[in-house]
């Protein structure tokens, strides 16, 4: 893998080696852009699919049904085959004016001047704290992303019989992960009166043997070192105590837009994403954005497709053939 400190400049720097970033990188190369450098802070490229150990991935991109990890491997291979440089364990710590990036690597810090920068930093789930959930703080409180990386990357489990909060697509993914890891959720709760997605969660109880309680929210999380019990309030104002050893908060995705947020770029405070024009260009025209950073949350295919589309625009821009703006 590449050491980003080797370079002072590049044509396009892409921050984030997930589906959007890798698809964009490969596309840029195919469009004749010479030096495309993907920077990722993790020790492995591929992004979130690396720890979604179940299908469906890759149906349209690679015309086959794949699990997340094999899809991630395929994305990386395609990008490398196209001649993309990937620098891992490389954290961008600052976005400077005009595409100047400050980077930190285990080999030292450095600066990289890119003609264009594509932000493809993805999304994460909203943790318990930002949801302002009542209760004590102890071990056993997790998000789907944290659970999946523990299960699929490290073969570890944080709990055995958690309460699952939320009924989004990812909640279904969380149930699949639990099943694979031998974790038996005690119940699934949803604040609203119907599941966020009606299928397949409407049938979650029969599919997974996990009861679904609607109109229900957490009023207290109890336990000493680990979660021991959760109190919930249902629509009829009845308090119910659910014995469990963990709470799994699923969904409520939020853009991982820290870099943009801490920078000079304009941010849409409603969505938390950087403000872009019709092409995907940020308020500083050296910067572009694509993928889940812009619309939490979309499936990998959509991020991949958007990465490719935005890469086409960036290539046009570098060749001087992009219209000024269609904002």
């Amino acid at each position: 893998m590449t050491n980003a400190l080797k370079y002072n400049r590049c044509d396009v720097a892409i921050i984030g080696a997930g589906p959007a970033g890798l698809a964009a990188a490969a596309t840029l190369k195919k469009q004749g852009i010479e030096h495309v450098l993907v920077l990722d802070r993790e020790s492995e490229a591929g992004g979130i699919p690396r720890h979604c150990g179940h299908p469906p991935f890759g149906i349209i991109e690679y015309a086959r049904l794949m699990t997340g990890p094999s899809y991630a491997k395929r994305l990386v291979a395609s990008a490398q085959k196209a001649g993309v440089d990937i620098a891992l364990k490389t954290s961008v710590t600052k976005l400077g004016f005009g595409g100047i990036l400050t980077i930190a690597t285990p080999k030292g810090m450095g600066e990289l001047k890119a003609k264009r920068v594509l932000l493809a930093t993805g999304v994460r789930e909203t943790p318990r704290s930002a949801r302002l959930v009542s209760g004590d703080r102890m071990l056993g409180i997790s998000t789907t992303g944290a659970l999946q990386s523990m299960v699929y990357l490290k073969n570890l489990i944080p709990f055995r019989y958690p309460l699952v909060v939320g009924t989004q697509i990812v909640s279904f993914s969380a149930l699949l992960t639990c099943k694979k890891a031998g974790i038996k959720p005690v119940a699934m709760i949803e604040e609203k009166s119907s599941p966020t997605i009606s299928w397949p969660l409407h049938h979650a109880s029969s599919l997974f043997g996990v009861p679904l309680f609607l109109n229900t929210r957490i009023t207290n999380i109890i336990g000493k070192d680990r979660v021991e019990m959760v109190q919930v309030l249902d629509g009829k104002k009845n308090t119910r105590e659910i014995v469990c050893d963990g709470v799994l908060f699923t969904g409520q995705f939020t853009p991982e837009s820290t870099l943009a947020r801490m920078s000079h770029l304009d941010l849409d405070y409603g969505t938390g994403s950087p403000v872009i024009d019709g092409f995907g260009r940020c308020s500083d025209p050296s910067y572009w954005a694509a993928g889940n950073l812009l619309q939490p949350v979309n499936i990998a295919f959509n991020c991949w497709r958007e990465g490719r589309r935005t890469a086409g625009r960036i290539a046009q821009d570098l060749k001087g053939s992009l219209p000024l703006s269609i904002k």
Partner: protein
Amino acid sequence: MKNKDYNNFGSNLDKPGGVSLIANADIAIIGGGVVGCAVARRMALEGARIVLIEKASDILDGASKGNSAILHTGFDAPVGSLEQKCVNRGYEEYLKIHKSFNLPILKTGALVTAWSEEQENKFEDILKKGHDNDIKNLKLLSKTQILSIEPDLAKSVRSAISVPGEYVIDPWSSPLAYLRQAVDNGGQALFNAEVTGGEFDGNTWLLTTRKGQVRARYVINCAGLYGDIVDHNVLGGCEFTIKPRKGQFVVFDKAAGKLLSSVILPVPTERTKGIVLFPTIFGNIVVGPTAEEQESRNNACVDKEILISLTRQAIEKLPALANIQVTATYAGIRPATEEKHYRVIQDSDRNWITLGGIRSTGLTGALGLAAHVHDLLSDQGADFKALDNPSIHPVPNLAEHLPRDYKTRGYGEIVCHCEMVSQREILSAMEGPVPAGNLGGLKRRTRATMGRCQGFYCSARLAELTQGKFTNPLGIGDIDD
């Protein structure tokens, strides 16, 4: 530099009643909060053999884990009180020693802000009190002056008293540095060793702990939220009763850091300093604490309604916070008593000192209290020879405004991306003379998982790195179990 004979004392200890003697010291300090750690350091420097006894598996497990991290000048402390003296002494000493420990200070200053005429009417008293407490640089600021310092503050602010000497520090690295110095200079720290009883033979204490017995000439009870219980269990009574008072806090994302440079203090009421809006040394903005009386000494649960109300109050004062995400919420429990002041009780006949009722000023006051303990012990004839050249060990910097570990090559990899915590920092926090004893301790030593994603990205790697280290691990087993 070290008490060589002390380091090997364990080999020839007697074992009365089948319960092993696990420490033999001049001074036993019960409780590893900021006060206990500061007392341990002071007395070790004075040449005493100390042992700190903590019931949890790491330091700072009680009141000291959830405070406001402010280094107080004591401008508003009761005039002439022990609290005022200790805060004053502690403040001076902190400024003197912090550099040698690599402990950071963020020179924020504080603004006691008035948002109503009624609050403004109290300014005269506050200024007088500050003057009587010998804090000479207090200054009255007009609305225009306030807004030139803090342009993002709500325009409804009326006036303020500037307290330039109020600073923000690292509330967890400081006590760690104190205890580390005590241990480096011959002291000992025992964990999972709750004190359950003790006998005084007229000269020496034999304390019973969950881990074994501890012999010491003097005992300093710094047990914080459990101070009265320890006194009851060992002495058979206590002059005060702990009245736990919970304070909830909301931590805003680091993007808020640029919105505020000063600590925004409210005009205090009789009972509490009130709800403060303050920058942290780690780059966040925090609002809190509430003051809620409760029975439980350890239930630090947060409440959604109150968190919402705190967030609203913060936005009222700093409107741009409305666009900032919440990073964390937490609650701390202050060991209040029936009375407002520090409850320092010396039982000279039984070589016992209790330090109780140390609340919001404890982080600053601890060093002063430690010096006060030394005075009290000297008064009753304890005679130690201060170390000529004590060893001192700097702690890793966690402050956002100073260079963090990742800026130096060879850190392995970044484990926690939100707080930029390196693998090297995490591994080193689990080693050394005072290693992290649990995950909370590791978080306080490194900031891992304390950022905006709260472990979404890093808990798997952290579970792997900490496997086998803690009694209560992040990962409870392998999938194949």
